[in-house]
């Protein structure tokens, strides 16, 4: 199946019965969460990339909110990255990425539900460089990162302990994009002196097959992000 992003006027590729399909976009961090879960669990699936600036009607019919990731399987449709990933963990429980212990599962969910406090700073930091409030922004960024550094120090090499769990995959996509931030704001680099556990964790994550398979080089992320800001997102950048 072609990796090129399908847009307005395109036909929806027919979906064979019993096949799991992911609607995605190659540079979307939210879709990457679900790709990571699928790959780490060795689930068979096919991908259809979507032109999110000119969405096909058939895509909006599946997700009226119009965002990726979306999972489709026979007559079942699931969207919202956290809902997709919890659903996959229920249907494909090997390996189990969300703890069966209710309290531990809650603590894990809290970690990814509150990660928005970090992701919003990825947008605010570049703005703060322009309006002179970078220092204040970086302090907020470091305060939020400290929550994760502290939690990780209590858990082990990964947030899942000796092996990755759902938390690791839910937060990874933004750590992959830090090199884009540091071009504009070098202060956003994860200092191993301030964040020793997160620094080691980042290196470990880069060795996971699922992470390597979804990884895009910083230059690709920068190119995509610039094209997005210029109003003409280059969804197919890097494809032959």
């Amino acid at each position, binding site marked *: 199946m072609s990796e090129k992003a399908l847009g307005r006027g395109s036909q929806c590729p027919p979906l064979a019965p019993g096949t799991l399909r992911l609607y995605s976009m190659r540079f979307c961090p939210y879709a990457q969460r679900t790709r990571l879960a699928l790959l780490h669990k060795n689930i068979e699936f096919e991908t259809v990339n979507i032109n999110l600036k000119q969405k096909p009607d058939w895509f909006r019919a599946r997700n009226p909110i119009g965002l990726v990731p979306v999972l489709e399987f026979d007559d079942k449709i699931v969207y919202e990255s956290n*809902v997709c990933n919890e659903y996959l963990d229920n249907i494909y429980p090997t390996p189990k990425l969300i703890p069966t212990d209710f309290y531990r599962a809650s603590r894990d969910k809290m970690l990814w539900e509150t990660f928005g406090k970090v992701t919003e700073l990825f947008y605010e930091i570049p703005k703060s460089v322009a309006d002179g409030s970078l220092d204040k922004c970086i302090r907020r960024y470091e305060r939020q990162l400290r929550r994760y550094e502290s939690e990780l120090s209590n858990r082990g090499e990964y947030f899942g302990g000796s092996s990755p769990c759902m938390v690791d995959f839910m937060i990874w996509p933004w750590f992959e994009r830090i090199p884009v931030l540091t071009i504009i704001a070098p202060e956003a680099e994860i200092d191993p002196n301030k964040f020793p556990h997160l620094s080691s964790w980042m290196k470990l994550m880069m060795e996971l097959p699922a992470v390597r398979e979804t990884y895009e080089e910083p230059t690709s992320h920068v190119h995509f992000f610039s094209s997005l800001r210029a109003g003409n997102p280059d969804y197919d950048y890097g494809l032959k």
Partner: protein
Amino acid sequence: NEVVNIHLSKKPEWFLEKINPLGKVPAIQKDDKIVYESAVCCDYLDQVYPGNKLIPDDPYQQARDRILVEHFGQVTTQYYKMLFGPSENCAAAAETLKKGLMEFDKEIQKRGDFFGGSEPRMIDFMVWPWFERFHATEKLVNQIFISDGSMPNLTAYMDRMLSVPAVQKCRLSTENHLEFYQSVKNGAPNYNVGL
């Protein structure tokens, strides 16, 4: 269970240090266990007290209910824009909120007396709090988005929810909500309205 109400504009240090560093409610605590984020609290309570199971066992139905809550987030976003955003954007926010509610007016017809079916379930309790505040909001910002009879299925749903014992036990009146929101807009939130 016991309830401790928090002064959210002057948060006690112990709340930030021991309970929730993000300083938000709800948070639940039992012995050394602490859970916050409302959706996570609800999931946790349903698992630990499964007597009257409110979340569907079927993983796909669970996912679809969660998706419906996410859709409702689009309604609540407009709701806060109307209440606390610039007044010149109020009418537009009300229009968008109404469009969002129309989806729910259609959805309730597919599901039954409640979004949970014949009985209220977690999905109903996740969305109810904003329905409870709609009449007060209409009065406060002078925009009608539900009381005009344009969504009869939702209006009937709201009446049914008002008869649910859990809703009756913890609801505030339209006057209470109006008084609270007025105090927030005046810059001095009165968290003790109704006491």
